[in-house]
């Protein structure tokens, strides 16, 4: 009898303590079953999309990773992003900093490294919120489910849908225009492929991409030869770099000085729009999607 009693007591204590701490079991993008706190209060986000989605759900994360090619949170998030504590770069967070933040839930979307994931799970329950190549809407829905904010997510998506309908109806003649999205590099500009984040938002707006930019893929094309620069031409050209403001403007100045660039129809018609590369040519979430719709509205809707 005695030999059974002790383990039973232990088990009882364990279930009691977990019950107070975690009431829910969720399944993450990898199919792993996780027990997460019912009302997580210290959420750490380890990718741009997680950060964006958390902010859209009115969560203030305790920390985040730097945006790709950025010195801090992605530039488009502005002041909200720059105030956040950074734990390092995407894919290589500094574990000491992660521990110091004492998170009770870690959102780690797109994390490719299972060993890092195992280490993170020793610090706090870590949910893989999306796999590389999942679209942002599915990721957003999963993040909302993991953080128990489904209602907020649905209301955000409703706002997004409204905004889409509104802008689409105001586009008028431009609704059938083709739109090119380019990350500029004077030695080899790249365009965003068909399944890239910005491309998905443009598809939501039912805007067409030029015929040369329809290859499948979630990232950008390889660097394009400058002789083939007409591949980035379209009715509208949205072009940006990841570099900070000063360098970005000098990079684009180099573009405008280039004769091949001046030959582009979009440039001649002054339908070239300088955009924030951290927003348009990276992996964003719901706030980024809304911001892209705003950019399109500002550039293409006649006033």
């Amino acid at each position, binding site marked *: 009898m005695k030999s059974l009693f002790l383990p039973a007591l232990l088990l009882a204590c364990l279930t009691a303590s977990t019950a107070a701490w975690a009431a829910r079991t969720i399944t993450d993008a990898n199919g792993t079953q996780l027990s997460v706190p019912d009302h997580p209060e210290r959420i750490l986000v380890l990718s741009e999309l997680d950060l964006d989605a958390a902010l859209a759900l009115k969560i203030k994360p305790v920390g985040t990773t730097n945006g790709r090619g950025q010195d801090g949170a992605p530039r488009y998030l502005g002041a909200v992003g720059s105030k956040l504590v950074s734990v390092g770069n995407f894919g290589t967070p500094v574990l000491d900093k992660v521990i110091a933040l004492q998170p009770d839930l870690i959102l780690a979307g797109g994390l490719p490294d299972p060993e890092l994931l195992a280490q993170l799970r020793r610090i706090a329950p870590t949910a893989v919120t999306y796999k590389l190549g999942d679209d942002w809407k599915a990721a957003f829905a999963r993040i909302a489910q993991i953080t128990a904010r489904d209602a907020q997510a649905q209301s955000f998506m409703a706002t997004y849908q409204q905004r889409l309908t509104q802008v689409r109806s105001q586009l008028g003649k431009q609704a059938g225009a083709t739109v090119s999205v380019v990350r500029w*590099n*004077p030695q080899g500009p790249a365009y965003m492929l068909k399944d890239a984040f910005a491309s998905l938002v443009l598809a939501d707006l039912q805007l067409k991409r030029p015929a040369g930019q329809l290859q499948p893929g979630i990232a950008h094309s*390889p*660097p394009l*030869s400058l002789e*083939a620069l007409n591949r980035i031409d379209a009715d509208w050209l949205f072009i940006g770099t990841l570099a900070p403001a000063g360098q970005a403007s000098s990079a684009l100045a180099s573009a405008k000085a280039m004769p091949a660039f001046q030959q582009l129809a979009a440039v001649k018609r002054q339908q070239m729009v300088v955009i924030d590369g951290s927003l348009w040519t990276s992996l964003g979430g719901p706030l980024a999607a809304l911001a892209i719709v705003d950019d399109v509205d500002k550039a293409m809707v006649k006033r």
Partner: protein
Amino acid sequence: MTARVFSGAEQGALLVVLALLMLALLMLASLLLGAGEIGPADSLRYLLGLAAPAQLPQDMAMVMWQMRLPRMLAAVLVGGALGMAGMLLQTVTRNPLAEPGLLGVNAGAALGVVIGIACAGADVGAGYLLWALLGATLGNGCVLLATRLDQYVDAPLRLVLAGAALSATFHGLTSSILLAQQSGYDQYRFWIMGSLSGISPAALGWVAPAIVTGAALALLLSRALAALQLGDDSACALGHRPALVRTGIACAATLLTGSAVALAGPIAFLGLLAPFLARQCKCTTPAARLLLAALFGMALLLAADIAARLLARPFETPASVVTALLGAPLLVWIARRSSREGLA
């Protein structure tokens, strides 16, 4: 076909003529071929003035004079510089494997440029040139210091190993700077691949004088360098000052490598391939050997760059990938041969 046997000198002259012919053809091909939609036939008709402008693609003049010509000139400058620098380093270290890429001079120049981007906001052109030269000086200094140490004399592979260690150190420092400053990365990423795409005429203007100066200095010192091969005492007896000559050669090699890296990024193996081919010509005058190495460097880089345009049309492949594909097997072959001869 012919039973006549060429003498060594005749064979050399024949090879030189062939190399010159090939260089001319490659320069022409570099103007005729591109990754865009303008084909060689239209380009040739345009260059020969055989067609009215209306019959030609609209962008013809722009593609020819703004893109292909600067690119062709850059390949000639960078290829020539790296070929000559390779020959200089191989002669001064008495090592057939010495070349700026393998010995860490390229990596030193790259480190210089990254420090320049990160700390001083260096921009393409003059900024890259200055910082690349500083970095190349550092790299070259280390190499020449190593060759003064007894254990590296007549041990080609050991010197290459030391160079690999040096390269790794420079690469490590470069990466750590880049990781600390993510935003510099995008600007740097394409350049570090080693490519001739998008070279601006302004950058060419900055770098060309430095390369010409380096080449002139090297040719001026070529006789003294040859004398140095006989040993320092003999060189002194012939009226040369070994320390001064070595410093001059180091300056020339630094100017050549640093400028080439500033313009096109670190392109490996060219400094190995070109002098290797030049030596096959069995030329005896030191200046002619330097010029031949430069000639082969130009031809090789032109060919590599043409391949880089055509491999993944309409996208760019870095030219350094092509030179590495050619150069790595050669390195293995020379290393095997020299170890069989007991040099390692």
